[in-house]
């Protein structure tokens, strides 16, 4: 007979260790710690960048120096010492890989532990993987197949070399360096990331996927992702993250920019499982990310995220609905455990007529964690018939955790319709009773309820990713959900 109760579930959550905590021992080419103009010039030189990009970096650095770290988020942490971080780290091999066999076996092993063996990925799933290990792209597959369609999918540094006109045209248009403290920092020191361009009218035949991974101790990662879908194009982009176990805090300040031109559609899915720190709240990744997309006429951007990792998360994937009839969506599951803190949500800025946005946010707090939703729905004067629906639910697992909601709703147009609702509760005894009365064991009932609770969001993930997301959710809520 199963006597699995919510308390036990909570206990399990507390006891569960981070599964992906391992360090790959690769010699890294690291620049001296600290941040100044010389370091930025050094990074730019190492990456063989054109002058306009160096100037962009220096300008961003100047802006960053004027700014102070934001404190409005509902999180508490030891502020990173920006002078104690090494801003560039690349695996040391200088020669390019001729074939997959040439790749350092240890790196392959890392991928294997992550469950994304390159060969398998290529053969079985048809997903092109741009694997970023400490800032430098190691292998890119399916490039040719994609290039037949005119799709550009490569690392950001390659894009700078090969398609400077596109990068220069779009970079910083959605998230300018002046946007916020971490965006400015990223603008100054970003090392690599992904670039994706889908030409007019092309529907990308496969999901594009990038695995980011933080490695060498003490190096922060500053990715920059730029996805441009030209008129009538469609792309589904996947981003997944795992990081090795570390004792000191690691800073991650990425910038993601999406640009959906007229009639285009971008679907951006994230599974984030960085090292959340140990049970005492020691260590873990600081995840301070700026993600934003802009929609032109009839365009659509859809963000889906499953957040289970990081010690501190500060992240608001947003949509600027500039064009008429454009659509923005945000689906999120955020799980926090032990001493994790998450302040996440979205911003939907309605500028165009008949714009629509949907926000579905599900938070699950366990252990001693704090989980906040912070969102903004802004209807501007010209956004006739704008429509928004927001739903933010929180599930509390223990009496020591917290769940908070901070929605901002600003409306300046009388034809707009805005709905917002939020609930906070624990797993209802009546729900449990209902299931158990029908012969479902308590453990299964809890798993069923949690699964059902997140289903709305998980359903939004592409097939290839849904499996991984469920795996991560299962690990995060081990012993109860499967």
């Amino acid at each position, binding site marked *: 007979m199963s006597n699995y109760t919510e308390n036990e579930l909570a206990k399990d959550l507390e006891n569960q260790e981070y599964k992906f905590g391992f360090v790959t021992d690769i010699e890294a080419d690291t620049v001296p710690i600290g941040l100044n103009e010389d370091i930025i010039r050094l990074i730019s030189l190492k990456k063989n960048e054109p002058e306009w990009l160096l100037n962009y970096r220096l300008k961003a650095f100047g802006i960053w120096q004027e700014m102070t770290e934001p404190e409005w988020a509902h999180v508490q942490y030891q502020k990173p010492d920006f002078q104690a971080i090494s801003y560039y780290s690349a695996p040391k091999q200088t020669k390019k890989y001729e074939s997959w066999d040439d790749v350092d076996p240890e790196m392959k092993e890392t991928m294997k532990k992550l469950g994304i063996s390159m060969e398998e990925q290529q053969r079985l799933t048809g997903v092109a993987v741009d694997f970023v290990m400490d800032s430098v792209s190691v292998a890119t597959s399916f490039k040719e197949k994609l290039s037949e369609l005119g799709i550009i999918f490569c690392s950001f540094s390659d894009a700078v070399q090969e398609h400077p006109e596109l990068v220069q045209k779009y970079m910083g248009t959605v998230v300018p360096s002046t946007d916020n403290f971490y965006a400015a920092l990223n603008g100054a020191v970003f090392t690599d990331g992904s670039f994706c361009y889908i030409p007019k009218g092309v529907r990308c035949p496969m999901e594009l996927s990038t695995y980011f991974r933080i490695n060498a101790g003490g190096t922060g990662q500053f990715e920059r992702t730029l996805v441009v879908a030209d008129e009538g194009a469609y792309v589904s982009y996947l981003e997944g993250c795992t990081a090795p176990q570390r004792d000191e805090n690691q800073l991650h300040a990425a910038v993601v920019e999406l640009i959906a031109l007229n009639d285009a559609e971008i679907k951006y899915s994230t599974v984030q499982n960085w090292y959340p720190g140990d049970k005492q709240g020691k260590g873990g990744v600081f995840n301070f990310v700026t993600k934003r997309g802009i929609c032109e006429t009839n365009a659509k951007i859809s963000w889906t995220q499953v957040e289970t990792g990081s010690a501190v998360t500060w992240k608001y994937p947003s949509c600027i609905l500039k064009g008429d009839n454009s659509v923005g969506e945000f689906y999120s599951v955020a799980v926090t455990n032990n001493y994790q803190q998450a302040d996440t949500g979205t911003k939907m800025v309605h500028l165009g007529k008949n714009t629509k946005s949907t926000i579905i946010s599900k938070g699950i707090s366990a252990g001693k964690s704090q989980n906040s939703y912070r969102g903004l729905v802004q209807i501007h004067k010209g956004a006739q018939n704008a429509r928004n629906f927001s739903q933010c639910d929180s599930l509390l697992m223990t009496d020591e955790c*917290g769940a908070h909601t901070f929605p901002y709703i600003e409306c300046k*147009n009388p034809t*707009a319709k805005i709905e*917002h609702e939020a*609930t906070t509760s624990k797993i209802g005894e009546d729900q449990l009773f209902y299931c158990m009365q029908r012969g479902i064991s308590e453990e299964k009932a809890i798993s069923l309820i949690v699964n059902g609770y997140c289903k709305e969001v998980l359903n939004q993930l592409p097939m290839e990713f849904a499996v991984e997301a469920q795996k991560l959710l299962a690990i995060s809520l081990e012993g109860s959900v499967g």
Partner: protein
Amino acid sequence: METLISNKLLQFVADLGPTKLHVPVSLQAAAQAYLKDQDFPTTKTERFKYTRLAKLNNAQLSAAHQLDVAQLEQHSVLTDAYTIYVNNDQIKIPQNLPTGLEINLNTQDSGAFHEASFYDVFGALNILHAQNGVSISLAKNCTLDKPIQIVQVNSGGKYFYRHHFNFGANAEATIFFVSKQQDQTTSFSHTHLQYNIAQDARIKIFKLQDTAQNHFDFYEDRAQQAAKSHFEINTLTLDGSFVRNDTMVAIKGEHAQTYLNGAYWLKEEQHVANYTTIDHQVANCESFETYKGVAADRSTAVFNGKVFVRKDAQKTNAYQSNANVLLSENASVNSKPELEIYADDVKCSHGSTTGQLDDNALFYLRARGLSSASAKTLLLQAFMEDVLTYVKHEEVLSYMHQRIAERFNWNY
């Protein structure tokens, strides 16, 4: 030694003397400390994100002038009540009070709670500069036969008021706080209202805010509730160009119930902000919050509701809703319903909507022969009537209906 007036805030209160009321020295010191280096809050301050105080800072306030009794009595809304008149420096306290009810000038220690926690500079300024106020206490087991009415009339100048209420165990009372404006004077008032509610007491507060253009009307409501008490604040904003309500209820005893309701009818350039905080400190309590409003012309409505559930406040039920109808292209609504929850066995929800009238409902009425205008009016009246149902007092209700009719051409 001469002190230099370094900022606009100090300049703003430069002509005000120290408070004449009973305010503990420790609290004054805390307020002094809080105000150190503070200036007028800007829109960068979270609590003033939607409120521009430049208008107040630049306003030319009329000279304060005292009204006579006849003028004051014109502003009364209730005929049968224990009515207190507050106007600038003067206060009129009724005679022949029933046993159990005491009304005094707020110059003695009235047993009020003094918490040195500040949300904004005005609360701290009030502590230092309050010139006028009453303390009202109702003995235990006392049920008032008729309501208390406080008519506060503004007639120019800059005033900080401080009113204290003490309700004994099992006491029952209804209080109407009517805020009015004499003529077309430009004035500022900040009113601190404090309610101390003992066990089992049943208290209803109605705030009728009916000031005119050019009056800056600030309120700070602070309440503490003991076990099994029932407390209700209804904030009804009929008129006033600049109204700001900051209400905070701390629930300190189990099985207490709290109702916060608000309604606002805005037009022209009105700015009305309602900030509420319900602090659930103990288990087994319930709170209900409903704020509704319509905004026409170039008006702005702001709602910021916070429900705070502390770690030990298990079995809390907290509901909050805010609904708005925008009637014009230049009106705007900013709503921020917040939940901050540290206990797990709770049921908390909030909802916020902003929209316009339902086309189907309008069609239904049009099909039955109503003109477009009257169909709209009917639906808007019905929308707002939700909150008005709490006003059980006929006289007040008809006064409100009359005022709304005057301003919006709605027929009741």
